[in-house]
């Protein structure tokens, strides 16, 4: 009896004994778990992902610091500002003498004249070209006809015009000062119009063109065999008023760094069955373009994957089915962080717009997975519902193939906009249920090239 009471007391003492929680005990437990039940790690992919991100960031930082494109720009400007010397066949410097008191009449982009006298040359299109005696006619492109006209008229000081055959206006030969030389293309003869006769300044208005022509023919002096050297034709003449034409060196391509802000609708689906809900995908990206053609880019995007899976499409751990032997369907709502590494190719040569195609691999970090299971405890029983949430459990590195194509248009030297439809196909099962989670949508982005200038606008960021 007493023994029984004593035993009873011992049992009561044991039941009432509750030691307080000790955090240090959990610390030891954690070490034991790491040893015997380590967390699943995908080391190779994680290391590769970290290495790639490190290289990209390091390259971007180096570019930001060194800025190699700025040196190239300065060199180009220096070359463009040097005035090329112009000489004739005799080696004389043909650079024009600029006279501040001259009257100037611009006739177009490539031609400027210094007019000191009354004689004029009018082209068939009505362009008025002054060709005064004693002045210099300067052509910026001596190999071309003035404005490409078929008819050139020579007018006297009285205002009468005479039609001439297509001519090539040349720089004056200083060996014959004060004389304008017009070279006939057909017979290689130079025609020098004589100084107009002021006594006959008032012409008969009824005089026909033929009469004028004939009269001009009688008064012209033909000079044969004017030697025009190739150098004269080729060397451009640069005046102080002409803009410095900065030509892009042949074959030069640009590299550039950029970042982008993106958003757009995203829809998830399994196989070819019902589509899930459309959700918003948003994020930031950064990248680098090589030679205006190839772009390497990465970024960070967040979105939600909402879909419904049938039991056949859901592949959780085997023990799952102990709890849900009669599963009907699974409704998933997952918050996903996406980190893509993409390679893009730009089509076209326009600096304003182009099309591009992209491919690459993305990593899905399943931030929060919420699954609502519809199931029955027995086949004939009612349908029950239970929710299950996982936090930061599943990570799929380089497990999603991304395919896209898009269009990009620059709205300023540093900013462009783009639209990019895409398709994402999983290479492995995604999430707790290891589902084949496909995604599709359109990404609208604003690209910003922070180190760009107007002079260097050759590459569109995307």
């Amino acid at each position: 009896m007493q023994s029984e009471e004593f035993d009873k007391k011992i049992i009561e003492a044991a039941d009432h004994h509750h030691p307080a929680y000790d955090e240090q005990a959990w610390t030891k437990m954690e070490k034991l778990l790491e040893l015997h039940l380590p967390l699943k790690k995908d080391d190779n992919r994680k290391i590769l992902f970290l290495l790639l991100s490190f290289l990209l960031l390091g390259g971007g930082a180096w570019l930001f610091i060194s800025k190699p494109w700025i040196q190239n720009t300065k060199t180009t400007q220096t070359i463009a500002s040097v005035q090329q010397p112009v000489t004739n066949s005799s080696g004389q410097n043909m650079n024009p003498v600029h006279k501040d008191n001259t009257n100037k009449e611009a006739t177009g982009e490539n031609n400027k004249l210094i007019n000191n006298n009354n004689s004029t040359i009018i082209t068939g299109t009505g362009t008025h070209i002054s060709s005064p005696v004693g002045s210099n006619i300067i052509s910026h492109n001596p190999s071309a006809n003035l404005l490409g006209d078929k008819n050139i008229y020579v007018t006297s000081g009285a205002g009468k015009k005479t039609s001439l055959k297509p001519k090539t206006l040349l720089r004056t030969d200083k060996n014959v000062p004060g004389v304008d030389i017009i070279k006939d293309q057909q017979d290689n003869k130079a025609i020098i119009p004589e100084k107009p006769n002021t006594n006959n300044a008032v012409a008969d208005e009824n005089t026909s063109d033929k009469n004028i022509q004939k009269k001009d023919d009688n008064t012209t002096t033909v000079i044969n065999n004017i030697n025009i050297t190739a150098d004269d034709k080729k060397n451009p003449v640069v005046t102080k008023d002409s803009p410095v034409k900065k030509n892009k060196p042949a074959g030069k391509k640009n590299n550039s760094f950029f970042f982008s802000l993106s958003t757009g609708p995203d829809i998830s689906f399994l196989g070819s069955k019902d589509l899930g809900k459309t959700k918003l995908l948003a994020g930031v990206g950064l990248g680098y373009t090589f030679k205006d053609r190839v772009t390497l880019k990465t970024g960070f995007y967040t979105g939600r994957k909402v879909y419904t899976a049938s039991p056949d499409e859901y592949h959780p751990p085997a023990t799952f089915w102990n709890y849900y032997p009669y599963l009907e369907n699974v409704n998933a709502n997952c918050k996903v962080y996406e980190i893509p590494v993409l390679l893009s190719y730009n089509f076209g040569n326009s600096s304003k717009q182009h099309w591009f195609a992209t491919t690459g691999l993305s990593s899905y970090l399943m931030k929060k997975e919420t699954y609502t299971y519809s199931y029955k405890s027995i086949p004939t029983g009612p349908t029950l519902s239970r929710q299950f949430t996982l936090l930061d459990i599943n990570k799929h590195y380089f497990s999603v193939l991304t395919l896209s194509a898009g269009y990009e248009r620059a709205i300023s030297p540093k900013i462009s906009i783009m639209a990019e439809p895409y398709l994402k196909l999983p290479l492995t099962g995604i999430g707790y249920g290891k589902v084949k989670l496909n995604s599709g949508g359109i990404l609208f982005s604003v690209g910003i090239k922070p180190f760009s200038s107007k002079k260097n606008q050759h590459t569109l960021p995307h």
Partner: protein
Amino acid sequence: MLSADELTYHVEGCALNNRESQKILYSSFYGYAMAICDRYTNKQEDAVEILNDGFLKVFREIHHYQPAYADVVSSFKGWLRKIMVYTAIDHFRKYHKHRMVTQLDNVVYQVPAVHESAIDKISYEEIIRAIQELSPGYRTVLNLFVIEGLSHDEIAGQLGISTGTSKSNLSKARRQLQKILYKQNQIQVAKNAV
């Protein structure tokens, strides 16, 4: 203590080797499990070792766990208790096997009779401390027979001893416990009857 739904949720999480769920389960049942473990040893670090080894077994086998009855929490506690007891037995077999007494001693302890009022004055903590002070063999048999409710045959099978040895150790455990309590509280008990 966790509710039934919370327990179910974290059991599922532990089946997936989720650290967060494991910690929640560990902290929630720490007191219950430690109350079992520290009765089998007189050192705190040994008790923690038994506890952690027990929980390691729990986490390893939790994907096989199925609630035996409707009360999910009680069912889990019973499963947890069994694992902790067996882990304590393993610990004893590992460190104190050779200390088991193989035959009855002829020594009889002369102690005064215990009055009911005297037993009531003994606190639970004193009894637990007294149990911890027992010899390892006595302590183990006392715990298994009196608290866990195992039979002498089952105890003999678990500890690798004979049934007689189990009975002998239980008798001695009671006497030693009473002696300890007597020293502490001057309690007089009757002669031990096997």
